[in-house]
């Protein structure tokens, strides 16, 4: 479904990602762990063509994405949820979710908005509230729900737990895992929270200074805990 081969990413002269290669099957759920500045966000942005200059091969559904713009990639079935939320403040929750469906790939049946809102208990009473009048946690829920609304093939989720209270993180983990499973959505999650990542995914990549230093299941991760932790500790 998604294949990266020899991907290098640059911001101007700075070489951020080095020879990244991995693949994801349809419905696969993969966590990318790493310290601040390791290159997790750059990797997601490279897949979406959302900033860095990228060299190397990125293929999605057997199609090379080299010249595809971010909106084309979104219409192909990649949904990017950046870490800074940025919900449309002047639109209600319902309208925010509806907009996500306008540009969606026509081949996939969309998630009914009311069903989706029902899955996020925090959003139920906020259906008609403008995004600007929500708390950070509520906005994060809405941003994630917006990623799901188009029923993408793969959702790229960037640090969704950043700045959230533990109780909201737990609720978010439950909803993300359940939605991905029930709607058949693949997940590529960039996170620092090992607990959250473990709840939502089945495979893990560890990235350090722009290179993949570990790839395996969570069981492999636990078996190599000492080696892996060296790349995660501050």
């Amino acid at each position: 479904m998604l294949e990266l081969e020899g991907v290098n990413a640059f911001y101007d002269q700075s070489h951020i990602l080095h020879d990244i290669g991995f693949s994801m099957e349809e419905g696969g759920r993969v966590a990318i762990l790493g310290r601040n500045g390791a290159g997790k966000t750059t990797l997601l942005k490279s897949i979406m063509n959302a900033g860095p200059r990228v060299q190397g091969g990125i293929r999605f559904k057997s199609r090379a994405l080299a010249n595809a713009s971010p909106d084309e990639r979104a219409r192909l079935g990649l949904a990017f949820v950046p870490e800074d939320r940025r919900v449309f403040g002047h639109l209600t929750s319902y309208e925010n979710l509806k907009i996500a469906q306008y540009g969606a790939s026509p081949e996939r049946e969309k998630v009914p908005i009311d069903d989706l809102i029902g899955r996020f208990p925090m959003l139920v009473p906020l259906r008609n509230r403008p995004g600007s009048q929500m708390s950070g946690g509520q906005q994060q829920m809405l941003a994630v729900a917006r990623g799901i609304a188009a029923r993408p093939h793969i959702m790229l989720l960037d640090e969704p737990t950043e700045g959230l209270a533990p109780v909201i993180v737990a609720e978010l983990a439950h909803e993300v895992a359940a939605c991905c499973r029930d709607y058949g959505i693949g997940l590529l999650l960039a996170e620092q929270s090992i607990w959250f990542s473990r709840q939502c995914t089945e495979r893990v990549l560890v990235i350090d200074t722009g290179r993949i230093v570990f790839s395996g299941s969570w069981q492999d991760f636990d078996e190599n805990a000492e080696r892996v932790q060296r790349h995660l500790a501050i």
Partner: protein
Amino acid sequence: MNGSSFMRPAVILLFVAALAAAPFAVNQGLLFLIGIAMLQAMFALSWNLMFRYAGLASFGHAMFYGIGGYAVAAIIFHGFPLPFLLAILLSTAIGAVVAFVVALIVLQRAAGIQLAVLTLALSQLVLLFVSYTDFLGRDDGLSGLARPVLDFGFFTLDLRSPTAFYYFIMVAFALVTAGLLWFVSGRFGRVLLAVRIDSERAAFLGVDVRRKRIFVFTLAGAIASFAGALAAPWAQIISTDSMSWFNSAQPMLATLLGGAGSYWGPVIGAFGLILVNYFTRTFVGLSEFMVGGILLFVVLLAPSGIAGFFEMLRRMRNRTRTASAREHNQ
């Protein structure tokens, strides 16, 4: 139905009734100005369509107004055998095509102030071209434009009568205003607002931002051309003034005065500007000064314009009512 949801249709109905009654209540001079106000309102609505819904600020929008005006004026002046309605449609289409080409070129890279300056420069180039073209009357423009008689077979509409042409403009104004309102209130309007607020995020959701902007720019150009195509036979003259930077500023001033944040702001502003100009016309030399002073007053005291000011009053009244209801319950 609460107070505010009742108020808006009532005000609109009152406005329509006042426009319809104008030919019976005012002299020909003022009737002409009200016709111009409706055309300027359409022009300003088209500008605000770009500004409010796509975040595009064009400083050369009069180019399209002028193109529509010159196209229909040339057809009438040179006696091309084209029915008047078709001439209006053709002029609108020419404006739309030019706007599309300009959008393709300009929106490729320019945004913000670059877009504003580039559109201004383009409009001045077109003005220069017109002022050197004999066919378009050079600097003098085309004057003495005859208003037509529309023959529909089963009835004729004599637009030579100012009153008939006034109602013709009024119907066009109503159709454009209602059509645009329908357009921006639906799905497309929401997507456009999303593009304006956060184009990057909209792209991540699959919205083709560039295509949407080109479409809006083209539509705005078409509506401005349509307004210009009606203005030329209404004034019975078209000149390079219609494409000047001063005319490009009119929809911006109207939007500023009426309120860019409201759909109706440009309409309120266009009528407001015409009224101010009318009532200050005898203060020779002071008229522009007074218009400038009023604009300064509005910008400083009500930055959201007249529409925003009324919206603020409505919110204050609602807050007061809620507070007194709470006190009453306690």
